[in-house]
């Protein structure tokens, strides 16, 4: 390990809370999103335990409704949206493009504080009455009829949005202005492309949810009639505004995970990513078309048939770039030299689960199927395959992959492989039965249900218990490995990105000498410095701290 690095450059609590180092801020985010993940996970576990029995003996109706609402709010606004961008993106984007930091280091710190203040409001809402509106805050339930602490929760989510906007802004400016010499746009790792697309969505979409929640908050607190039909408002207007952000927000959650997968597959197949330009363009296409599909959440609100036809059509279009990415990832495997290290197992897991999640999106975009499965467990299963099967698998795969860079130490390989396997099995057992439940007609957000649905609910709860173990294991061994793991060396895999050309953990200024880039992303054949056996080249032997 290097003697001086970003972790031991300075000491004391102030050196962390006032840091402007993007790597330390990433770790602040890591701690806070992990905190919210386990809060959200606890709520999820309570939900699944409650649903073991059709009569639901564990929780009262009001408590159950608070559990699923707060599960959604904690997971979406405080875990999934910030997880990959604010933790991995924050840590890696400057390293990947050869920069010393993000363009606005102080704004980066500010965005973490904004997140914390928003989180505090939301936690306050959770302990003073909870929230029972669903994470979607549909009006007039949320603004007029709910007896829970809606106002602080709405304020919390409103505030946290600004953290997202600032992070997106920082990434865009950084990628535009701070690339190292030779790091052209088409040499950027696809992780950076994915974050570029994500940042565009964050900047354009988040102000809309901010204004929507501000209106809902004013209706709730001051009784102004924006959405309440009794005062001449329109409850459907709320849904339009809400989904104008919240559908693109799905892409805020999944695009960065796709970016991680686009790093993992070439690294562990030791081969250039197939169709680099098409995968980069697909990220942008998803970001653009993703803004034009929002009313597919509203096909059964009584909206005009023409509107439903247009938005169903656009929904099918947005599926195509995701399909293109999947085909390119699969094609990359052919002719590769594939290893089965833990990050690659997560990439395989992502491929399988995202495939199911993406394809079941077609069912929901299809008008003639949505009229039956809308608002049933089919929807719940679909978006968990995207959010958990896709985004969380990508996040965990990325954490394992870059853990040696972040901490300078390796995680325990076999334990990690077992955990990845447990996660995959537990996830499928939890969520696959919910597709069947949904088609059979079980509506979502039910605290009691007819007994004919019980078998699938018991399966789902059994799966959730396995899943819980799968999440606890990495938390324990990654923490352990940060202090006691085997020393990793600069580039243990080896991988091609610039982040691997600096020590692990990196120094505060990232690179002692600004690197000059002369190679394409994932170009193993023109990288003699990696010490690999390239046909036609004589291998340059180098020492690695490879374990």
């Amino acid at each position: 390990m290097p003697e001086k690095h970003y972790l031991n450059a300075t000491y004391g609590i102030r050196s962390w809370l006032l840091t402007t180092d993007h790597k330390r801020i990433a770790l602040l985010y890591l701690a806070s999103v992990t905190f919210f993940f386990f809060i959200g996970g606890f709520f999820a576990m309570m939900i699944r335990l409650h649903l073991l029995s059709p009569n639901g003996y564990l929780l009262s109706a009001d408590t159950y409704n608070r559990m699923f609402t707060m599960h959604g709010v904690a997971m979406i606004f405080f875990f999934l949206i910030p997880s990959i961008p604010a933790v991995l993106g924050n840590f890696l984007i400057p390293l990947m493009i050869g920069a010393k930091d993000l363009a606005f280091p102080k704004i980066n710190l500010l965005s973490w504080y904004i997140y914390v203040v928003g989180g505090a409001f939301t936690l306050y809402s959770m302990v003073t009455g909870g929230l029972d509106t669903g994470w979607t805050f549909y009006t007039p339930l949320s603004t007029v009829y709910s007896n829970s602490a809606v106002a602080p929760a709405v304020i919390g989510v409103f505030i946290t949005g600004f953290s997202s906007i600032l992070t997106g802004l920082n990434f865009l400016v950084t990628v535009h202005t701070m690339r190292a010499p030779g790091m052209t746009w088409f040499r950027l790792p696809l992780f950076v492309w994915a974050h570029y697309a994500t940042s565009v969505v964050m900047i354009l979409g988040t102000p809309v949810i901010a204004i929507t929640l501000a209106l809902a908050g004013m209706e709730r607190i001051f009784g102004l009639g924006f959405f309440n039909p009794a005062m001449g408002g329109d409850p459907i207007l709320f849904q339009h505004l809400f989904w104008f952000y919240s559908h693109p927000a799905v892409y805020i959650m999944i695009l960065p995970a796709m970016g991680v997968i686009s790093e993992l597959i070439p690294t562990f197949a030791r081969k250039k990513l197939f169709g680099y330009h098409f995968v980069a363009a697909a990220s942008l296409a998803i970001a653009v078309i993703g803004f034009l599909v929002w009313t597919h959440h509203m096909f059964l609100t009584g909206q005009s048939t023409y509107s439903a036809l247009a938005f169903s059509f656009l929904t099918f279009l947005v599926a195509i770039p995701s399909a293109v990415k999947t085909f390119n990832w699969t094609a990359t495997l052919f002719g590769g030299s594939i290893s089965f290290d833990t990050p690659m197992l997560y990439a395989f897991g992502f491929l399988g689960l995202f495939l199911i999640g993406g394809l079941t999106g077609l069912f929901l975009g299809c008008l003639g199927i949505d009229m039956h499965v809308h608002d049933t467990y089919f929807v719940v299963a679909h978006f968990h395959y995207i959010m958990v099967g896709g985004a969380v698998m990508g996040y965990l795969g990325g954490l394992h992959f870059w853990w040696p860079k972040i901490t300078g130490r390796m995680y325990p390989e076999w334990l990690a492989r077992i955990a990845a396997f447990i996660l995959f099995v537990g996830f499928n057992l939890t969520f696959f039965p919910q597709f069947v439940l949904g088609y059979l007609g079980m509506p979502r957000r039910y605290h009691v249900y007819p007994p004919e649905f019980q078998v699938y609910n018991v399966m789902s709860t059994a799966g959730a218990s396995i899943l819980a173990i799968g999440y606890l294991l990495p938390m324990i061994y990654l923490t352990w490995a940060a202090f006691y793991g085997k020393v990793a060396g600069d580039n243990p895999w080896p991988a091609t990105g610039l982040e691997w050309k600096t020590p692990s953990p990196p120094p505060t200024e990232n690179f002692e000498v600004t690197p000059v880039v002369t190679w394409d992303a994932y170009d193993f054949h023109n990288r003699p410095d990696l010490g690999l056996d390239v046909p036609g080249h004589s291998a340059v032997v180098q020492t690695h701290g490879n374990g």
Partner: protein
Amino acid sequence: MQSPLPFFPEEASNFAGKVDAVFSFVLFTCLFFAVLVTLLTIYAAFKYRRNKPDEVGSQVEGNTLLEIGWTAIPLILALGMFAWGAVVYVNYRTAPKDTLDIYVIGKQWMWKLQQPNGKKEINELHIPVNRDIKLILGSEDVIHNFFVPAFRVKMDVVPGRYNTMWFRATKIGKYHFFCSQYCGTNHAAMGGWVTVMDPADYAAWLSDETGDINPVSAGEKLFSQLACVTCHIANGTGRAPSLNGVYGAKVLLADGSTVTADDAYIRESILQPKAKIVAGYQPVMPTFQGLVSEEQILSLTAYIKSLQSQPVPAKGAGIAPAPAGKK
């Protein structure tokens, strides 16, 4: 008896088979691709597994023809799915003529349903088999959703407006209906049963008097209680148009456009009288927002509907004259 691990719910409406058919098409298309990609991945992972620690893969950039192919083929299939789904949905959103109309009011956390003759039910819906049924949906409070899995149909029940849905039950029996839009504490308890009956049984059930007040007479009473009658004078001499024959007819508005006087128009005219002003009249009617419940609106509508056959006065009717040259 159902199988212990059922996959499809019962098919009991004209839409059930159609929805299941498009579902099966999408399912098998997706299964084909899912299995293909999975098998290719497993094959590649096995075939191209790393043999030596310092081995690298081959140098391949990509293949534009392949990219075009795997963009175009899924696109074509996706458009097929879109089109098939659209046909089923448009059919569902376009109710046929001559339906049996039943009013459904959702409120936290119960359903109130009213048959055409005024017979009321709570959390129960009786309908005849093989008859086109139209539900007119309104809400007293928050958004609900009326969902019958065996019929494969659902529709949001939105406060402040009427939504409609239609279907034709094809099998006699009892089927669950649910509220599938989250609506607060007892959302999960807000369900009931649809009973599909033989038409003769339905007729007998319908005429079995349970002491309910006929909605037309209830509406007539309200019409004078709320003093509607002082302006809407039947012979057309009042400050407001006569309502004789209005229901279902075209109404000429002050801005020159016309509107069909359906349930939604009547509801709007009661709650927001200034939204559409009948040609030749002043906007003097006060709003009844907050003064009448959704159920009372249904009664008033039923009464106005009963005036359909009353003689229309030559002057002072709200009905648009037939434009010259057209019927």
